[in-house]
């Protein structure tokens, strides 16, 4: 499986790196490791990886700075690993350009699913698709129509824009800030209640039980994620 995608792991804890490497190798990925931010940034140039797994608690640089530097150098997908006490940092890193996060501790399966979602976005952008489908939900992106179990659902332009952004990032978290900025513009970044109201409407139209959604998942305090079942 040597032709597997190359992942750069930036993580200071040796045991975590060992677990990540063996778990990823087993699933067919190739890995290179860096134990601090500086080495990680250097390896980005020398190794030319396709994906980065970045731990937020590095000894030499904080995760947000590393994310920013990585973004300056390349637009490859970044997956953040965060501890529970780093909620605020996690959101800042996502807004700084990271693509998704995993909260420690996590299992190999979860990690793999996230990496797959990240790669999918890179390889075949959902926006360029004609039809997006997950579970009973079908979105015809050329005709701009939404179907649930093949019945058309009428949604408003704003709801549709929210939905397409989530489809573009399907399987990945999209922060409140990103959604607000893309749909309402930079001046509405603080108006989270806009999101609550429109996401609520969208849930009520697309979910059988909006209080236990299947597609439009809430990541409390972070954003939303369109689930790929």
């Amino acid at each position, binding site marked *: 499986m040597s032709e597997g995608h190359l992942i750069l792991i930036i993580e200071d804890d040796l045991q975590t790196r060992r677990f990540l490497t063996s778990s990823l190798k087993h699933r067919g990925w190739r890995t290179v490791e860096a134990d601090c931010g500086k080495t990680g940034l250097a390896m980005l140039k020398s190794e030319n990886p396709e994906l980065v797994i970045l731990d937020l608690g590095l000894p030499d640089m904080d995760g947000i700075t590393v994310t920013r530097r990585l973004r300056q150098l390349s637009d490859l997908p970044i997956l953040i690993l965060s501890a*529970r*006490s780093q*909620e*605020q940092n996690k959101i800042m890193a996502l807004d700084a350009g990271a693509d998704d996060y995993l909260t420690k*501790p996590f*299992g190999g399966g979860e990690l793999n699913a996230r990496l797959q979602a990240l790669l999918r976005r890179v390889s075949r952008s959902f926006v360029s698709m004609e039809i997006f489908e997950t579970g009973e939900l079908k979105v015809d992106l050329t005709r*701009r129509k939404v179907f649930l179990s093949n019945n058309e659902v*009428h*949604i*408003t*332009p*704003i709801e*549709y824009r929210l939905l397409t952004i989530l489809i573009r990032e399907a399987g990945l978290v999209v922060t409140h800030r990103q959604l607000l900025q893309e749909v309402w513009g930079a001046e509405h970044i603080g*108006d*989270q*209640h*806009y999101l*609550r*109201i*429109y*996401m*609520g409407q969208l*849930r*009520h139209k697309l979910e059988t*039980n*909006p*209080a*236990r*959604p299947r597609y439009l*998942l*809430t*990541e*409390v*305090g972070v954003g939303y994620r369109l689930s790929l079942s």
Partner: protein
Amino acid sequence: MLGYVWGVSAPLICTLTIWPLQNWLGPASILMTYLLGVFLVASCYGRGASMVASLISAPVFAFYFARPIFSFAIQDLENIISLVVMMVVANVTGNLLEKSRLQAELARQREILASALYRLSRDLSDAKDQDAVACIAVEHIRDEFEVESVLLIADGENRLKTPASLSLPISLADIDLTRAQHIFENRKVKKENSNLYCPLEGSLAWQGILIIHANMPFPWQTAEQNAFLDTFCHLIGQTLERLQLATKAREATIQAETEALRNALLSSISHDLRTPLTRIIGAASTLIENDAGFSTLERLDLNHIVLDEAQRMSELTGKLLDMARLSSGEIILHRDWNALEEIVGSALNRLDKHLKDRPVRTILPDSLPLLWIDAVLIEQVLVNLIENAVKYSPAGNPIDICGKTEDGYCRLAVVDYGPGIAKGKEIQIFDKFYQGDPESDQSGVGLGLALCKAIIEAHGGVIYASNRVGKGAEFVIKLPLHEPPQVAEPETTGIMS
């Protein structure tokens, strides 16, 4: 002054009264009348006035009543003797009266001082803390001496604490603290400029300093008044000491309680951490030792034990971390407008694994307004409550989550169909480290509900538990509603073209 006016007028009044009756009265009766006048003056106005009265009475009597009349000469020996006796009697009674009058005055002053001290000690005994003592002392000194003052209290290291400048009278707003500290350390009463510094002594240590501001001369000059001020200071010093000792005792009790709590926590945590650790170590070491001897299925089984127990530990440490974070200081809320539906959805999603075999019924009306809350913390509350419902009701039984608005609050209930809460424990279960049944396998550290309570109360809400009439427990949180902001550009509800 009035006394001397009476001293002069009393003999004249006597003369006018007796004059028409002189033909019927003997000289003894007339002199007795004058004596009465002198006596009355003495009893009312003291010795000076009575001396004046008696000195005037004598010549007036000689002039008007003793023969020869209208002359100061006196013919009869009897009249001379009577006059001398009257003078002596007048003088002696005057002296006696003066003495008793002074004593009465002294007693009255003492009574005033005693009652002032009584009032002070009564008020001081009501004081709850040292700052209250400072207020009371200043007030009483203002009442008794009509001067402004300030009380500086010393801390544990004998340093005077700076008082809040707002509570100071203007005349004392610029006291030199260094100077006060210096005098306090010398332990001697000192007059300086227009301030009087009185260090306050307790029975064990010096407690502070009272600084009195008055323009010279100070109103207390006599030994009596000085002693009074001394007693005042002594009383204040004693009270300060009493309160300081009480605070120390209270702190010691709190520390002992914290210690007990910490021990309870430690034993509880070590139990809860050791159980999964024992299983993990057991399973993992078995796997390593007999790697070849196990079938794939057996190996998988042991691996599952490791994973499950590690996840249990992860949850537990997560809760401990939360509790440590929340109890290490004030809870900092990152509030924003949030939909309860999303938070419930996310909590259920997080607990997906635990809820596999359970129907969860959510009843959340569309009309629920947005809440001004910290979504991450409220989600944690919901996760804890739902987890509890799972833990304490038999597998397969449903769990209900119902929300509604109720007079200014959003009321959210998590209902299970288990055996309910033990009677009388409805409040206790929210205590830190409370455990339903210490022997039960279901024991957590007893932090979950305490955590919930802390979070909900930080939001200005309430949380309580009760048993439902049928069967099962109901946990209710009530969060205050806030006026949600308007959406600036409401979208036309029209269908997309």
